[in-house]
């Protein structure tokens, strides 16, 4: 199978916020709180990848489901990510694989 060599689509703040269905200020706040990764170009503009939309959705779900504040959401998402890595490792260790 071959893949076309294309750069992963970058979205700027407004495009990303529109795709996520939220206000750009909220996205900017997520970035400032360190719960959403973004790259900054030399001009200071924020850039995102389309894959990060699911991260925004998760932040919203956690906020709505648990009434967490954003600092707590940062902790929860970090822990969930770590657990996912550990579970994958556990799965590999549980059965001989590669």
């Amino acid at each position: 199978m071959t893949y076309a060599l294309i750069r992963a689509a970058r979205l700027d703040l407004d495009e990303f916020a529109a795709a996520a269905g939220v206000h750009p200020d909220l996205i900017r706040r997520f970035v400032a709180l360190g719960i959403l990764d973004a790259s900054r170009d030399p001009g200071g503009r924020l850039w995102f990848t389309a894959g990060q939309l699911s991260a925004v959705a998760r932040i919203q779900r956690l906020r709505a489901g648990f009434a967490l504040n954003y600092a707590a959401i940062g902790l929860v998402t970090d822990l969930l990510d770590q657990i996912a890595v550990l579970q994958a490792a556990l799965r590999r260790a549980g059965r001989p694989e590669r």
Partner: protein
Amino acid sequence: MAASERDFYRVLGVPRNASQEEIQQVYRRLARTYHPDVNHDPGAEERFKDVSEAYDVLSDPETRRRYDTFGPDFRQVPEDVDPETWRRARARAGAGRAGAGGAGQAGRRGGPGSSAGFGDVNIEDLLGGMFGGGRAGRGWGPIPGADQTAEIEVTVEEAYHGTRRTISLAGPGGTRTLDVTIPPGVTDGQRIRLAGQGGRGSDGAPPGDLYLIAVIAPDPVYRLEGRDLHVELRLAPWEAALGTSVAVSTPGGEAKVKVPAGTSSGRRLRLRGRGLPNPRGKPGDLYAETRIMVPARPTKAEHEAFERLAAVSDFDPRRPR
């Protein structure tokens, strides 16, 4: 929605006289257990939704009282109705269809024209209950659904040839079934993505994806390492000493393994490309690991032959090499 449990106390697993504190305690614990971002099991979302809906009603003393009085359809009952009057009206109307009397305040959200039939709850209500939780997060707008994962066990044979599976998932309105094609050459732990089959989004937002994680079942014959298959190849001492050609069974059919003369136990004989196929490159290999077996109860003739061999041979397997 008929599949949904309508007894909110049973949903939370609390007695009808539970205190508000008790209800909150149970809800918090269940919400942490079944939140779609914590529990990726496809059934968890439905449970989370039910739990949230139950808590939405029981956490507020006023709605709880109305629920206790009028039952699951309390939202169809006008705010100012007298419980006694209502009970009588219901009895008169017979079982089932007691249309909401005063249309003015029917439903929490739906106006008089809202089509929600008696005993029904419309989908926005459920999804709103799911992520809204009543108090937190109203006004969030659409939120895409979470990704879900489920394990799917396949045998080595199925991993080799590929297979089809019908899986059942808990979903809105009961279970739904999906026909899933497992491609040939799936490896242990590999994720198969079913786009859009994960958790539902709220307010029309897109659903998440469902990831099936392939788990290869332990096999009595084959051991799997990635795409490489390992089998045991048992040999008689003379076969190992003199060399031979043996048929071994592989998931793709029988294959001939050439055993060179002078083979000891533990030698791995490779059959290139006879492991699991790889849709994106080189297939795995099959390794036949030799293991020399002797007759547990040799016949007299065998016994004598081994004795003659022992007498003429100066081979010492323990001599340092």
